[in-house]
């Protein structure tokens, strides 16, 4: 019971962090069809900006300023880069963001150095909130949950209650029609890209001191975010939310469930010895492949339901 409860909490926190990162990417991918490889780079930039700003001013100003900076950079990228590349097709946009990711990583290395920077949890949040069976649950994790829940609420409200939100929703499903109706679709695109990048920056501010802030962090977070977005489905923010939580919980619970295929076979009456073919594969316990389960799920869902969990359209 103890293990279950603690794992549930941890899985939720990790899932919400994934959601913070993936929500921006879902918006961008659904709306513009751009597989933004530079999204995780925006996450990294958010963390680094927050580090520098919190050194100079403080953590709470950083919480507001860093995402704004990232959003501004995103807007600039969209206006001066992506817009030109858009007419060359989706692959060209993808490669543009890929090149961008390489450049951002190098610039970060040159600006802040190669070794991790000491971006720490602010003193005001660095205490255990409550204790679950002897293990602390840090207040900062609760803070992360709070911010991501607020974010989800804000995005949902923004998309459904404001005018620009409705336009964005429409463009998510039928971009050409929205343009034909006379809305300034390029400006909508820029807004969405900037907003998505700002969300990634915010995730970086929160996640950077939870993890380690170093130049390789974009490279390590990148693939799992793509898995979450595609699994959740294009055009659906709720799908993204569910997918993030699912991936977070699966990865967390896989760690505590110490079973393998051999155990399953034993339950069915078949014993696996070292002479059995594929012995290595059959005796792999779940914790060892826990981090790979998202990719297995990705392949499975794409084969059987290519639009993802709750996707409303293809690209």
């Amino acid at each position, binding site marked *: 019971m103890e293990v279950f409860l603690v794992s549930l909490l941890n899985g939720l926190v990790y899932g919400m962090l994934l959601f913070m990162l993936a929500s921006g990417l879902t918006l961008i991918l659904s709306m513009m069809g751009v597989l933004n490889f530079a999204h995780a780079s925006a996450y990294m930039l958010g963390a680094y900006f927050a580090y520098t700003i919190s050194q100079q001013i403080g953590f709470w100003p950083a919480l507001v300023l860093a995402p704004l900076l990232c959003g501004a950079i995103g807007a600039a990228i969209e206006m001066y880069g992506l817009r030109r590349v858009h007419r060359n097709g989706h692959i*060209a946009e993808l490669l543009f963001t890929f*090149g961008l990711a390489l450049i951002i990583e190098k610039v970060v*290395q040159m600006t802040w150095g190669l070794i991790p920077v000491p971006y720490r949890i602010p003193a005001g949040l660095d205490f255990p909130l409550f204790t679950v069976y002897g293990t602390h649950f840090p207040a900062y994790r609760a803070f992360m949950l709070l911010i991501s829940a607020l974010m989800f609420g804000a995005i949902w409200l923004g998309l459904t209650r404001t005018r620009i939100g409705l336009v964005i929703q429409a463009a998510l499903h039928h971009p050409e029609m929205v343009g034909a109706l006379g809305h300034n679709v390029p400006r909508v695109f820029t807004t969405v890209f900037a907003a998505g990048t700002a969300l990634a920056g915010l995730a970086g501010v929160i996640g950077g001191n939870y993890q380690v802030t170093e130049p390789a962090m974009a490279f390590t977070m990148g693939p799992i975010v793509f898995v979450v977005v595609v699994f959740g489905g294009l055009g659906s923010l709720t799908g993204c939310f569910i997918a993030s939580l699912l991936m977070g919980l699966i990865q967390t619970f896989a760690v505590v469930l110490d079973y393998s295929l051999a155990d399953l076979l034993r339950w069915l009456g078949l014993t696996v010895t070292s002479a059995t073919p594929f012995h290595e594969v059959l005796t792999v316990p779940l914790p*060892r492949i826990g981090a790979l389960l998202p990719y297995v799920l990705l*392949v499975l869902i*794409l084969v059987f339901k290519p639009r993802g969990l709750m996707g409303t359209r293809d690209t």
Partner: protein
Amino acid sequence: MSADATQRAAQRATLVAAPGFAAFARRYWLWFAAFVAALLLPWLFFDWSTHRHSGFALTMLSEIGLMSVFALSFNMQMGQAGLLSFGHAILFGLGGYVAAHTLNAIKAGTMWLPVELVPLAGGLGGLVFGALFGYVATQQRATAFAMITMGLGELVAACALMFMAFFGGEGGISTDRVTGTSLLGVSYSSSWEVYCLVVVWTAIATMAMRLQTQTPLGRMANAARDNFERAQFVGYDPRMVRFYQFTLSGFFAGIGGGLYAIVYEIVTFDTVAASKSATALLATYIGGAGGFFGPLLGTIVVVLLQSGVSLLSNAWLLYVGVLFIVMVMYAPGGLVGIIAQHAPIARTGRLRELVVPYARILVPGVLSVFGFVLLIELASFTTIGVAQGKAFKIGFHAVDPATAFPWLLGAAALIGGGAWLRLEARGFRTRWDALIADAKAKGAML
């Protein structure tokens, strides 16, 4: 659509009745010339004083050869069939592992196969795994296909570290190409002999892939890429077209992997990693996915950047990123696209009128590139520190990055060169447009 097809059409028109070997030679002289040039190339680097080949040059050229087979096989999916794959390296790497195990079996005596045919074993490995993964991946197309290949790529790469029996874990599978089972009695202990083998196999694989583009399967793949709905009306099942194309590209990727096993005598998990797939994507895109030889050109550029420039600068990744962005924004057809744009002008015979305009933009272009590189290297040097352990040098003059002079020089070169380039570019554009209009008038477009 592609300049490739138009050139062939023009060729056929002119050679309609020439019989026999003469016709064959005239059509394919370029292939022969390229083959001979490839064999002669290492002699440029031959050290006449010690009578030794440059091992570095031979290995780099072998790398270019085998990576171009890999990139061409990748283009079978991307350029020919419109299937963007993020996990193509798994077919390359798995072919390599199969070839390495084959070589070890030959060495142990449990199997007999001449070393020359070991890449074929790699190819068969790539074919089998291509069929296996292709069965899953080709259920879908476009973005879903790309994501499935990404997932498969990550899975295989992670397995390569975990399972020892086939993958050898982190140390990989090492092998020895000097097995004594050669058809020609060659030992392959020297890099030169290995390089010749690589050149021959690269030529064979390239020719085979070229032929494949002209088979019904290759044509259907093109059709499915261009207009998916209409291609279905032809009657072939588009899913099977994708599947066969994927499997065949796996075969050729496996050949590349087999060559890798022979050249490096060790196959490790990085041959199936995402970074290897990314290299194929980069090479194909830079060279141009539209033309057949695009990946070949792109591989040359990418290998030189990766293994050459990285020895001089640790900012080479940034240059790759910038090159990428510049190509994506201004030359989305890649190098082949740029060359193909000149084809109509060449047909009107007025190509040499572009020499002077090119020279005029080349000078400011080189200047601004020099300024950019200088600034980046200075920044990298001062922040990351002693780059490559060498003192900072421009050409042969040592320069101190702490002074203002090199910074000002770099900034001036970049800004001045850039402004001058804009000026000259306008003139170039006018000349170019005039030539294209002339070509249009003479009917040399198509």
